[in-house]
């Protein structure tokens, strides 16, 4: 397997070549079906015997709560919000993702730096600045982007909780009529940014409107390829007596997430 690398200069005292587990990211807006897909994938991986850890935004021990609390106040400015999320991400990266990958676990990330970047670009930050800041992030083995039209997103949010989220509607940066219009407009803006990010980072884009099982199968097939190319068919290999064995640096069979042909966005 080609050893992992950071987008930029990385983190002090971390040798990416020791990170042998695969890092799989699922991206998409609220309502795109991320949690459903994470659950499918988690069940499948664990059934096959792969120890798996799930991480996601706002879940860090360090600032997860503080961030959620600050967001309830709706008074955060854009740069502050971005750096708050960056702290949250860094804490999970350093204290959850990296140790798990080092132990050969699969890490499933329910969103990654791309959501953070997209939100911030929509709020006026430059891509170049964000790339610098997130230079400490690890390059994932695969990024699946659930590309879903704002209308469907809105519908699924209504089904799930009956209302649209303040931040997911971009209410802090725009006012175009009511909440629904804001949601659609904001999600459209995000979508555009995501398309640019996709070109930059080569996400594997999947139409989020498709039946969830069919999406799950497609993701599974891709993940399976990654698992076999990392040479860890049997997880036992990397789990010797429960110790972190910096699994005997397997042969280098490259997997680089290549740019994928983009699915036609649904009008």
């Amino acid at each position, binding site marked *: 397997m080609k050893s992992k690398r950071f987008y*930029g*200069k990385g*983190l*002090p*005292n971390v040798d990416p070549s020791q990170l042998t587990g695969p890092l799989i990211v699922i991206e998409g807006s609220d309502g795109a079906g991320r949690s459903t897909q994470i659950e499918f994938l988690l069940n499948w991986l664990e059934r096959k015997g792969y120890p798996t850890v799930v991480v996601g935004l706002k879940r860090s*021990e*360090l*600032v997860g*709560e*503080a*961030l959620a609390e*600050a967001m309830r106040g709706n008074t*955060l*400015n*854009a*740069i*502050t919000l*971005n*750096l*708050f999320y*960056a*702290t949250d991400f*860094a*804490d999970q990266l*350093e*204290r959850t993702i990296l140790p798990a990958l080092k132990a050969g676990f699969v890490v499933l990330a329910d969103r990654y730096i791309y959501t953070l970047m997209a939100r911030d670009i929509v709020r006026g930050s430059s891509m170049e*600045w964000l790339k*610098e*800041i997130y*230079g*400490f992030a690890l390059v994932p083995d695969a990024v699946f982007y659930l590309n879903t039209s704002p209308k469907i997103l809105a519908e699924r949010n209504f089904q799930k909780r009956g209302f649209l989220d303040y931040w997911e509607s971009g209410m802090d940066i725009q006012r175009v009529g009511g909440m629904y219009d804001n949601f659609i407009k904001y999600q459209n803006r995000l979508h555009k940014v995501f398309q640019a990010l996709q070109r930059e980072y080569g996400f594997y884009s999947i139409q989020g409107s498709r039946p969830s099982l069919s999406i799950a199968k497609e993701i599974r097939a891709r993940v399976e390829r990654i698992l076999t190319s990392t040479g860890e068919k049997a997880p036992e290999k990397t789990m010797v007596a429960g110790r972190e064995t910096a699994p005997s640096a397997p042969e280098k069979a490259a997997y680089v997430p290549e740019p994928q042909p983009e699915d036609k966005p649904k009008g």
Partner: protein
Amino acid sequence: MPKVKASKEIEGKLIAVEGLDGSGKSTQIRLLKRWLELEGYKVFFTEWNSSELVKKATRKGKKKKLLTPTTFSLIHATDFADRYERQILPLLKGGYLVLADRYVYTAFARDSVRGCDRDWLRKLYRFARKPDITFFFELPLEVALGRILEGRPALKYHEAGMDLGFSKDPYESFRVFQGKIYEEYGRIFKEFPVERINACDPSEMQQAKMRETVRRIIDLKKFKLKRGVKS
């Protein structure tokens, strides 16, 4: 009523002080603030690390030792950004003299001693406007250490740089930590413009030099507070 355009131009001026603990910079910036206030100028004072926003999280991180060099740096950057976006920038746009007791250079020095990449730190703080004047209070390391450690104060874990593992003894750790920050400041102020103040000079001399510098660089009459003017 005349129309006021939302301008990108910043009329305010930013004055920062930097230096080691014990260099007397806080005393001096407070005196500068008093002077500007008494002279009737629009002035606002801000300190490093005072926002409510992340206080709880920072405390938790310190107590449970969750912080790494990167999260330590980011959490303080978040805190600073909140203060910057909520106070410093609006005040600068509103034509205030903003005085900052420590500014981004403190983060550059402290965080790079903790192991963060220098270039990354400068980029992280790129959103922050460069001060119009930065005063750096210079004094020999031993003098600064002497001033702080004289009374054998209780040093906090991070304050003493204990997380860096220089020494098990907080005082020894503090010495090493401050020494490294001292070196880093030296590097930083080769890179950024600075007005140096000799922190061993008598206080009133230091203050006189600061006032003279402020008068030379900033057109103070633009900052007169207009009293009793009806809007």
